[in-house]
Structures are given as structure tokens and as C-alpha cells.
């Protein structure tokens, strides 16, 4: 138990920063907290008979994606370009075997960075699950997220965050995606939309109402998500300093502004401010600030939160009009919110960042519009790639294993059909 404080320098002579390490360890824990948070958020919104099945979508991702991450995910994301930069690879990263004592430039052990990043690879497929909740076959889901992680998440992550990723180097100072607007939210949202369309609506949708089984749990889940998001965004600074503080502040401001504006919009539109509305606003704000947390100041963050709530609110109204069944609005919140954030952030970038970008640019100038172009390209690539690959994966799985629960299983509920359990035993005298 008492050991090892002597290891102050890594193999490569970089000095350890115990403070930065402390915050990154904490961030890793906080992002992990988002998985049960998400399970609660989603689980509370489905019908009683599907609550465990829906929570299992998040929890299974913790198992499958973590194991894959250790085996090859980290290598595919942060290894050097292979296959023309489609993804990365580094044999030393397989089973994380080569980073046992390596310390990164900022003084943080590479293990911590790897574990922190691994949590993003868990939550992204778990987010998708919201789109086809209440009707997917459990086994197919497991296979789907494994393949999706390997073929969609890992390449995208490599492009955006690896030092030799092509989106990382787009334009003068790269496409801005501080903590995963494109990699996490847009990719999950778009893939969810494709899957929802491909699988078709739930039996009885939209004529029957499918009332949430536990909004109380959904609210608590939203609370945990907000807390965990501090790790998600402020942790993405990979240090514990000014940039961390800036990201945390932006996160708080955007979430609060999102919550408040959704409440006001809904209050004006429907006459009542719902609890689900408030927490949806929190999420919209958090999603929108995710790509932007490193570059915007508090006022900009508040505008982003407000805009995200307004646009997501509209998007859900449109969904209801068009009638497709994105069960828990994975696209409506994460896809749309992510796009709003990734594009709109351009107008609120901190001057210092723009100056840096200008210094790096050919010709020594860099304008907001140029950056908007870069952002648009990145968003478009994320959408196109995620949509296409998801469609291919779904098609293959549908032909081989079948994707959709049988009508009978859908009526029984996922909990009984795939897990042989019930979520709330207390509902019956026992």
C-alpha cells in the first residue's frame, strides 16, 4: 500500500506533475460516473418493462468498450497513421503494454490519459443506444457497439485528436473539438438517427403514448451527467491549470444557460416548464459547449447554451412532425446540439487562440470565416462517415443476426425477454 512515490520521472525523463495527474485521475472517475448517469437518464425515460434492458445498453458498453480499448482501441486512436491515416496503430499500445512507466509531456502518466480517453469510447456508443431503445435485440446490440467502436469511433477519434490526424491539422490551427463535439456527440447522434430510421419505429408509435417510467431517476441522472461533464470537458485540457479552469467555467455557464432557456421556451410554448425539459436543456447546453469549452469565454458559453436549447427544442418538434422514432432523442439532443456547438463556437473564440492561429497560418492572418469553414468541413466529415459506416454495419448485422426484437419480445419488454428479470420488484407485493 505504501509504495512507489519515488517514481517522479518517466522513462523519457519527463517530470511528473502530481497536481495535473490528480485532476486527470479525478476526471477519469468523473467521466466514468457519466455512464451510470446516462443509464439513469435513459432508463427513466423508457417504459417500465424496458428499464433494465436500456440501462444494460450503457453498462454493457462499460464492459465491451473498455476491454476493446485496452486490447487495441488506444492503439487505433493514438498510434501513428496507418492505411493512409484511416486510423492509427502502435504495437506498444496493444494491451497498453508499452506505456507502463511513460509520462506525457504535461507531466501526466500516459496510463491516465489512456484511461481518460477510454471513457469517451464507452460513452459514445452508449449514447447511440437512446435512438433505438425499447426495440433492439440485446446480442446484436453488443456486436454492433463493438464493431461501431472499432470502425467508426476509433478512426474519428484518430482524425480529430491524434497529432497526425488529418482533422487535427486542418486549416491553420486545426478543427476545434475540445472535448468531443464531433467525435462523441455528432457521431453518436447521427449514427443514432440512421439506426432509428433503419430499425423503424416502436410498435404503437406514435399513436400510443409511451410515458417515462421514472422521471425522478432521469433528473438524478442528469445531475450526475452535469457533474461528470466537468471531468469530460475540464479534463480534456489534460492538465490542471488555467485552460482547465476556463473549460470548467464555460461548461457551467453553458449548462445553466441551456437549462434556463429550455425552461423559458417551453414555458412560453406549452404554458408549463417540465422537469424533462429542464434536464434536456442542461444536456443541450453541455453538448454544445463540449467542442467549445477550450476556446470560448463565459458569455460566449451562455450564448451557446441558449442557442443549443432553442435549436434542439425545434429539432424535437420537427421530429414529432416527421414521425420518425428517435426514442430518446439521441439525434435531437446530441447530434443537433453537437452541430450547433461545433459551428457556433467560431464566433466566440478567445482572441489569444485566433492570434495563435493567425501566427501559424500562411500569410499570418486567420479569420472567423476561415475557421467556420474548417469547422464545417469537420462536422460534415463526421456526419458523412458516421452515417455511412453505421448504415453498412446495420445492414450486415440485420442480414446475419437480425437487429430488431421480435414483436412478441417487444411487447413483453426487453427486461423479461433478454435478461429474465424485472427492474422494480417492489411494485408487486413480495
Amino acid at each position, binding site marked *: 500500500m505504501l509504495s512507489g512515490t519515488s517514481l517522479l520521472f518517466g522513462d523519457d525523463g519527463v517530470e511528473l506533475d502530481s497536481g495535473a495527474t490528480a485532476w486527470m485521475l479525478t476526471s477519469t472517475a468523473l467521466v466514468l460516473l457519466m455512464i451510470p448517469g446516462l443509464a439513469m437518464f435513459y432508463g427513466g425515460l423508457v417504459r417500465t418493462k424496458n428499464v433494465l434492458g436500456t440501462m444494460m445498453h450503457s453498462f454493457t458498453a462499460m464492459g465491451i468498450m473498455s476491454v476493446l480499448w485496452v486490447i487495441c482501441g488506444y492503439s487505433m486512436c493514438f498510434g501513428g497513421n496507418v492505411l493512409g491515416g484511416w486510423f492509427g496503430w502502435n504495437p506498444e499500445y496493444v494491451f497498453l503494454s508499452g506505456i507502463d512507466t511513460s509520462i506525457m509531456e504535461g507531466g501526466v502518466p500516459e496510463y491516465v490519459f489512456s484511461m481518460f480517453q477510454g471513457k469517451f469510447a464507452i460513452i459514445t456508443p452508449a449514447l447511440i443506444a437512446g435512438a433505438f431503445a425499447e426495440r433492439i435485440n440485446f446480442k446484436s446490440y453488443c456486436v454492433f457497439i463493438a464493431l461501431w467502436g472499432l470502425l467508426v469511433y476509433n478512426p474519428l477519434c484518430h482524425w480529430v485528436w491524434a497529432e497526425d490526424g488529418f482533422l487535427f491539422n486542418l486549416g491553420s490551427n486545426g478543427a476545434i473539438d475540445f472535448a468531443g463535439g464531433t467525435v462523441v456527440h455528432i457521431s453518436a447522434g447521427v449514427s443514432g438517427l440512421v439506426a432509428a430510421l433503419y430499425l423503424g419505429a416502436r410498435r*404503437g408509435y406514435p399513436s*400510443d*403514448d409511451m*410515458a*417515462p417510467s421514472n422521471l425522478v431517476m432521469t433528473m438524478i441522472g442528469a445531475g450526475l451527467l452535469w457533474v461528470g461533464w466537468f471531468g469530460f470537458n475540464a479534463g480534456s485540457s489534460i492538465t490542471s491549470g488555467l485552460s482547465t479552469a476556463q473549460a470548467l467555467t464555460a461548461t457551467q455557464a453553458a449548462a445553466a444557460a441551456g437549462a434556463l432557456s429550455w425552461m423559458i421556451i*417551453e414555458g412560453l*410554448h*406549452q404554458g*408549463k416548464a*417540465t422537469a*424533462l*425539459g429542464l434536464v*434536456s436543456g442542461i444536456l443541450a447546453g453541455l453538448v454544445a459547449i463540449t467542442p467549445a469549452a477550450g476556446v470560448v469565454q463565459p458569455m460566449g458559453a451562455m450564448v451557446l447554451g441558449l442557442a443549443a436549447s432553442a435549436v434542439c*427544442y425545434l429539432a*424535437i*418538434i420537427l421530429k*414529432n412532425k416527421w414521425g420518425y422514432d428517435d426514442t430518446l*432523442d439521441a439525434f435531437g439532443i446530441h447530434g443537433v446540439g453537437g452541430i450547433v456547438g461545433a459551428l457556433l463556437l467560431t464566433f466566440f473564440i478567445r482572441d489569444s487562440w485566433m492570434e495563435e492561429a493567425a501566427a501559424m497560418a500562411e500569410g499570418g492572418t486567420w479569420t472567423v470565416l476561415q475557421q467556420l469553414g474548417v469547422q464545417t468541413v469537420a462536422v460534415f466529415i463526421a456526419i458523412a462517415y458516421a452515417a455511412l459506416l453505421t448504415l453498412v454495419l446495420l445492414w450486415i448485422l440485420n442480414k446475419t443476426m437480425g437487429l430488431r426484437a421480435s414483436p412478441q419480445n417487444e411487447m413483453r419488454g426487453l427486461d423479461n425477454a433478454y435478461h429474465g428479470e424485472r427492474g422494480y420488484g417492489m411494485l408487486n407485493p413480495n
Partner: protein
Amino acid sequence: MKLITAIIRESQLDQVREALIEANITRITVSRVSGHGQQIREEIYRGRRVVPNLTPKIRLEIAVNDDFVDTTCQAIIDAAKTSQGTLGDGKIFITQLEECIRIRTEERGGKAI
């Protein structure tokens, strides 16, 4: 003796209970049920007003002696009706009660009600 079963709105439970107590009917049994009838438009889900396919309702069971049936029904009707009666206000069912036993004393019949 009769067994009165009333299905009312959740939101009227307090009002109905107060009305029954006023009418001197203090012994009742209440449970949560869901109902489907003619009612529509109830809740809001992400900006959309939706029709719950099974609306939560409250079920009252009241065993009464024959001469209390009318008072009881009237008390329930008055308190359960919302603004002159709207869809979903509920129903009252009356069945014949053959026997009633108070477990504590093993009394039977009308005086056990």
C-alpha cells in the same frame, strides 16, 4: 350491503376523501390503477402533448350498508367531477355484497362494515 367501486382521477383523490369524510363515510380502501376510456390530452413530453394510452387513475372500494349507497355515490360524484364534467372523470360500479367480516372481532354483516 353493497360494494361500491369508483374509478376517479388521481388529482381528485383528496377532494373525494374530504367529501366522503364530510358525508361520514370514513372507511375506504384505495388503490392505484390505470384506465383507458374516452379521455385524451394529459401530459407533456419534450414539448409535445401526448395521450397516455393508459391513464393513471385511483380506484376506491367502499363497502356500505344499503341505505348509505346513495349518499356515498353522490359525495363521490360531486367531488370527482371536474368543471361540470369532463371526459375522464370516471365511473362508479355497484355490486351486491353477501357478507362482511371484521377480522379483529369476527363480527359479521352490517355491523362489521
